[in-house]
């Protein structure tokens, strides 16, 4: 029998049992739709976690002084002030550190800022123009600290959005910190991140000014912020920074390093592992429902073979080979699952459109899970169709004819 006629015969028999075919198809439909929408939800939450963390500055590495463990004794971060401006210029050398984009030394302290009658206490950092790049921040109004502000010990200050609004300060205002007047030259754009601590409540002054007037300890820095050229070069930027600092500090054994480097990729990879686990969990539940749908197809095909025993016997008597009957029943199962799969894609896409608009859950549907879900559905149909089809093919024609 030609393939065309086999398909035609299969379709005729499915149309002959409309309700049964529709119900069987529903099992596959919901399985496929569930796979597509849950993977879509997982994808969307993974995207949003990545986006949130990169708004914190994903490419950021922080170098802190002091070894965490020194000769077996836990020294505690920052227990020794070992970072210097020499380290900063070493790290800023693009020849040795091609993957490091920006290097910002930081000294900081908690200070009161006074603007006329208002008074606000916040973290005041002394840093360089690279601070803006390293933290992946943008200016709201005004300008950031320039290189000449740093070299001239300029008495200028840049405020975070929250700090500025709490002080009622605007660009051009004069504020005092520790009795020293600073001119507000810029206000940072809101970071939008709900990260650890409020990234919008802070103030930045030139590094040199902070070292001389606010924190003390000229030439020394408390921390160095680094940003890698991209999120994919964080690893190599980390290694370059480690290498350079070991060299400038004359340390041969890296386990005795008097500094430590931490990155936000650690946070990122943890968060991604969590969302990935959730996605896999959701997708597995959906895949199980697809499997159950497949078993439904097999069940119906077995019923169909039993019910149509005498038809199978007749077809055999009329010259259908075992192969003809095998193909006919596999195609019936395949058609059931293919139709269910395609309708499932439609339902999944519809869910991807409706759910974000009604339930405030983001869904991001990508082509791969759609293709995989349909492929799996059809494969399930064929696999679960094989056993009933073999039963049909193996029926002895005489016994099949006798069945009424």
């Amino acid at each position: 029998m030609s393939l065309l006629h086999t398909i035609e015969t299969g379709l005729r028999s499915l149309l002959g049992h409309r309700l049964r075919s529709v119900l069987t198809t529903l099992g596959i439909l919901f399985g496929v739709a569930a796979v597509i929408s849950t993977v879509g939800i997982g994808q969307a939450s993974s995207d949003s976690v990545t986006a949130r963390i990169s708004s914190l500055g994903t490419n950021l590495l922080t170098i802190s002084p002091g070894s965490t463990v020194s000769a077996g004794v836990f020294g505690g971060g920052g227990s020794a002030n070992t970072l210097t401006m020499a380290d900063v210029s070493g790290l800023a050398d693009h020849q040795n550190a091609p993957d490091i984009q920006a290097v910002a030394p930081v000294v900081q302290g908690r200070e009161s800022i006074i603007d006329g009658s208002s008074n606000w206490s916040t973290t005041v950092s002394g840093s360089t123009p690279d601070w803006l790049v390293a933290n992946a921040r943008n200016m709201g109004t005004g300008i950031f600290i320039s290189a000449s502000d740093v070299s001239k010990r300029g008495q200028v200050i840049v405020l975070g959005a929250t700090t500025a609004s709490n002080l009622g300060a605007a660009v051009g205002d004069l504020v005092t910190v520790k009795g020293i007047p600073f001119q507000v030259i810029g206000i940072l754009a809101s970071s939008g991140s709900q990260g650890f601590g409020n990234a919008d409540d802070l103030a930045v002054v030139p590094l040199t000014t902070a070292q001389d007037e606010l924190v003390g300890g000229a030439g020394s820095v408390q921390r160095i912020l680094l940003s890698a050229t991209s999120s994919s070069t964080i690893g190599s930027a980390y290694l370059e920074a480690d290498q350079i600092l070991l060299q400038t500090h004359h340390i041969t054994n890296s386990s005795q390093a008097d500094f430590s480097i931490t990155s936000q990729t650690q946070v990122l990879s943890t968060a991604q592992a969590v969302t990935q686990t959730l996605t896999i969990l959701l997708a597995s539940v959906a895949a199980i429902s697809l499997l159950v749908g497949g078993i439904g197809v097999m069940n119906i095909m077995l019923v169909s073979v039993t019910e149509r025993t005498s038809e199978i016997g007749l077809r055999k008597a009329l010259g259908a080979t075992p192969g003809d009957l095998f193909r006919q029943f596999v195609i019936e199962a395949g058609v059931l699952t293919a139709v269910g799969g395609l309708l499932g894609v439609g339902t999944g896409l519809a869910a991807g459109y409706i759910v974000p608009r009604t339930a405030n859950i983001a869904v991001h549907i990508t082509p791969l899970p759609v293709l995989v879900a349909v492929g799996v559905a059809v494969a399930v149909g064929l696999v679960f169709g094989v056993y009933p089809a073999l039963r049909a093919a193996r029926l002895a024609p005489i016994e099949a004819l006798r069945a009424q």
Partner: protein
Amino acid sequence: MVNGQAEELIRLESITKTYGTGDAEVAALSDFSMSVKTGELLAVMGPSGSGKSTLMNILGCLDTPTSGRYWFAGQDVSRLNETELAHVRNRRIGFVFQQFQLLPKMSAWRNVELPLLYRNTRDRRDLALQALDQVGLSNRVNHRPTQLSGGQQQRVAIARALVTNPDLILADEPTGNLDTVASKDVLAVLKELNEQGRTIIIITHDPEVAPVAHRTVRLRDGRMVQEVAA
């Protein structure tokens, strides 16, 4: 009419068919030999349990004998596999069953077309309509089996057996489910087809069939007990 020089279509040589094993072994046919010539109308009669059905299954290539040889149109078909037997059934044998065995969801001509689907013939509709015309049902082609009388259904089944232009029409109790009038009607159709040259074997216990046949073979306990030429 039987022609003395007619070719032999079927030859059974010492066919034995046993079911079961060991002590439970039952021989449905034992050492059965028979020959049928092209153009013959043969009746096979016998009480139930006589081996009629087994003979029909072997003649129809629906089953293979345990031992012995079956020559069909010069070909030994007793040792063919299932697929090869399916081809022999499709190309050379037309079946008529007691229960008609029409597919209820298909119209008469779709039913008649069925065997042609398994040999990829063109003009299937035309051939089906021709066959229906031969059994006098050209005005019922689009009727479903349930819309036809028993006699009409059996004629559709005969058309289905005819449509492939087979060497042999094998009818298993073709009148078993019909009233007297319809039985006569069906037998008349078979007789007419035989007069056009078709070889027909009717397996039956209906005594009305014997007078129509050229020859009657009687079976009992898996053996031929009587052979009567009309």
